[in-house]
């Protein structure tokens, strides 16, 4: 029986190994300076890069953060500080529901909300789709982290004659800040890899775009478009893009684990 369990572990981890292997093998070969600095080339011709897609992903991430972080952190603090109100139960429940909604449905939401009125695809729509996906993650991790702040810290502050709101804002939240930031980073890494909600919101763009009301390129969109194209050079660039994406996600996850480990040791 132990043998079977060990075998399962090997079978399950094998795809991880294979995916990483192919990413390195095919992707590394196509990574060069041009990849990071050039725009996509014309169809069928070799060369070109994903510079605009990489920057686009960062812009979309920033937009998503602008939506998801303030609401998420403050909402999470509310859940931790006032855990038993009706609003708290409602917020917790809806956050859990939202976390389970397929990402493509979030794309539909942003489409209806932004693309329809504006009559075309836009960076803003993509940012909102991703922001709505980031929100429940930030709310839940913030609540969890703030709850972990020991009562003794709160007592120390109140006993000094510091009002409750000041205690929450200037003592409790800063004490929880490291954990909250970690949660946000993990959430951002997750949405950076999302493709489906961007298909009909950000839509993709072959050129640079700094206009929030116009479509924008994004790394996962570019990977998808290249992967299903008939051009071999584009296939290799898709692998390169995937390598960059996975590297990003990996780094954030490792950093988050390390930070979480340190927090535990501080206690």
């Amino acid at each position: 029986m132990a043998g079977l369990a060990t075998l399962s572990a090997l079978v399950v981890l094998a795809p991880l190994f294979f995916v990483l292997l192919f990413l390195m093998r095919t992707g590394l070969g196509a990574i060069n300076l041009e990849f990071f600095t050039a725009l996509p080339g014309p169809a069928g011709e070799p060369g070109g890069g994903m510079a605009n897609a990489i920057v686009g992903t960062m812009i979309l991430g920033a937009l998503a953060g602008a939506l998801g972080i303030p609401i998420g952190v403050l909402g999470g603090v509310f859940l931790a500080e006032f855990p038993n109100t009706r609003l708290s139960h409602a917020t917790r429940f809806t956050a859990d529901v939202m976390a389970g909604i397929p990402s493509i449905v979030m794309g539909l939401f942003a489409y209806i909300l932004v693309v329809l009125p504006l009559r075309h695809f836009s960076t803003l729509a993509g940012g909102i789709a991703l922001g709505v996906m980031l929100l429940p993650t930030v709310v839940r991790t913030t609540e969890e982290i703030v709850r972990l702040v020991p009562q003794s810290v709160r007592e120390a502050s109140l006993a000094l004659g510091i009002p409750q709101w000041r205690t929450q804002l200037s003592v409790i939240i800063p004490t929880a800040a490291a954990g909250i930031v970690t949660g946000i980073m993990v959430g951002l890494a997750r949405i950076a890899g999302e493709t489906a909600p961007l298909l009909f919101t950000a839509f993709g763009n072959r050129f640079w775009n700094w206009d929030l009301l116009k479509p924008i390129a994004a790394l996962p969109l570019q990977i998808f478009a290249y992967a299903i194209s008939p051009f071999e050079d584009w296939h290799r660039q898709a692998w390169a893009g995937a390598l960059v994406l996975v590297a990003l996600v990996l780094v954030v996850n490792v950093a988050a684990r390390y930070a979480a480990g340190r927090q535990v040791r501080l206690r």
Partner: protein
Amino acid sequence: MATVIAARTFRPAARSGDRLFRLLLAAMAAAVPLILGALLVALLVEGWPAITRFGLTFFGSSTWDPVARQFGVLPFIYGTLVSSALALSIAVPLGLGVAIFLAELAPRWLRSPVGFLVELLAAIPSVVFGLWGIFVLVPWVRSGLTPVLKGALGFLPLFQGPPLGIGMLTAGLILAIMVVPIIVAVSTEVMRAVPTAQREAALALGATRWETTRRAVLPYARSGIAGAIFLALARALGETMAVTMVIGNVPQIKASLLAPGYTISAVIANEFTEATYDLYVAALIYAGIVLFIVTVLVNVVARLLVARVGRGIEAGRE
């Protein structure tokens, strides 16, 4: 002391600073259900033309013909369900195996790295799995797996048809890879939550490690594991990119796992930007609503099941 003394209960005086800050926090918290509400309203409003036009025949019809303005989602429901079922049938035994490995059998120094690797598997974006699916898994299924299956079980209707590589089977495989980490993570946590006292009692009675797992741990963890399965199911149902890159995207209902298929999320992904008229868009949104309702329901059931484990353990302690 018998006399009742009227005691004053002192709420710390709600200073204006406290009230304002609380209001700010509450407003942000309220934004969450408001956003979900807006989502529901938006979907219903834009999907309404299709809902009123097709109603329940939407679910019974296999005809998805945008040109003729006929929209029936049966093939997509079929594809979604079959690919997810296939994925679970592979992922559940494997995932449980790994969970048992991690929670009960693995030496301490191995638990953290293996757990971490499983987490990494979960962190890989869908489109990267799809990419790997197209260029690695599909060729392997075509030239490696399919001949073997046909050779051994080719008489079954499940394995009829030409070895295309793309199709329901590949989609099921890739979904299995993607949902296995959920099964592992939740099941491991649930099994670890079972109090050591249970295990120790069994071991003291002379049970082997496996018997301990089977008799002392798994029964407690049962509803939690069921919850894990439902969470994995919800994820599989909603998965878009990896599926659409390997399933073939043909709206048909075929018995064979080797045949191409289509899922709800895949058709939305592929056709939404091509939808040239309002009813087309509304039909796709209607399909999205269906997906939404099903995944939310499955998720809610999953959470209730996982919550029951906590209560079961508490009850067991008494």
